[in-house]
């Protein structure tokens, strides 16, 4: 049976070297029958702006990992929905609550 994971990524890949290890773990979980999603919050959304183009979002997409960005965090930073990475979708924060109420493993990074 597939296990559901939602990782809430609050760490910013510009500053935090840990993020690359975290994304490797997410991919390893997806490869091992995990159904993995990631929600970027706070400064983690800064790397979603078009033009930054980190390879990581395409890589996560290739592994069937959905990546979302918190709508308020985007709005606060004036990053509009039509100006973010093609592999990232804006989403309300309540997807965290939906995941918790679904019994998913929800982990804060």
């Amino acid at each position: 049976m597939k296990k559901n994971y939602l990782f809430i990524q609050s760490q910013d890949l510009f500053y935090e070297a840990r993020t690359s290890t975290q994304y490797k773990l997410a991919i390893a979980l997806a490869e091992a029958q995990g159904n993995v999603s990631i929600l970027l919050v706070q400064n983690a959304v800064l790397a979603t702006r078009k033009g930054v183009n980190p390879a990581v979002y395409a890589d996560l997409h290739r592994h069937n990992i959905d990546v979302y960005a918190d709508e308020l965090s985007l709005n606060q930073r004036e990053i509009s929905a039509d100006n973010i990475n093609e592999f990232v979708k804006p989403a309300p924060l309540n997807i965290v609550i939906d995941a918790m109420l679904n019994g998913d493993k929800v982990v804060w990074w």
Partner: protein
Amino acid sequence: MENKKLTFAFMDPPFENERTITFFRLVDAALDAGADIQVFAYEGAAALAFALQKAHGNSVHHRDTEQEAHPLTKDWVAALQKKAERLGRQLDWVNCGLCVDERGVNESIPGCKRGSPADLWRYADSSFNTLVIGTR
């Protein structure tokens, strides 16, 4: 919808980190989703409900205390308590007692209790799910 209980453990103090507002937004969203809530406030988070927090004016903003209407986390806790009551939901809040003592923030707003890590385990064990938001 079947009512489900969710637990949140949070560690950050007020006025220091963006995690604080994200945590409050999550609890607010959980109430909207019809969940009962249990919060374990650890370390600096034990000051979130500190009753002696005081709003201030801001001369740089050219606003007095009333005009500035400065946010206080104790008011956010109270607002969530009020919302829970209005929705017929439960919001239980435990501050880590040792964390409160060492910081001198014993005086919490009504409805916030003193406890220990055993309460976190009790909360988690009685909840449908738990989210820990660690500090960084």
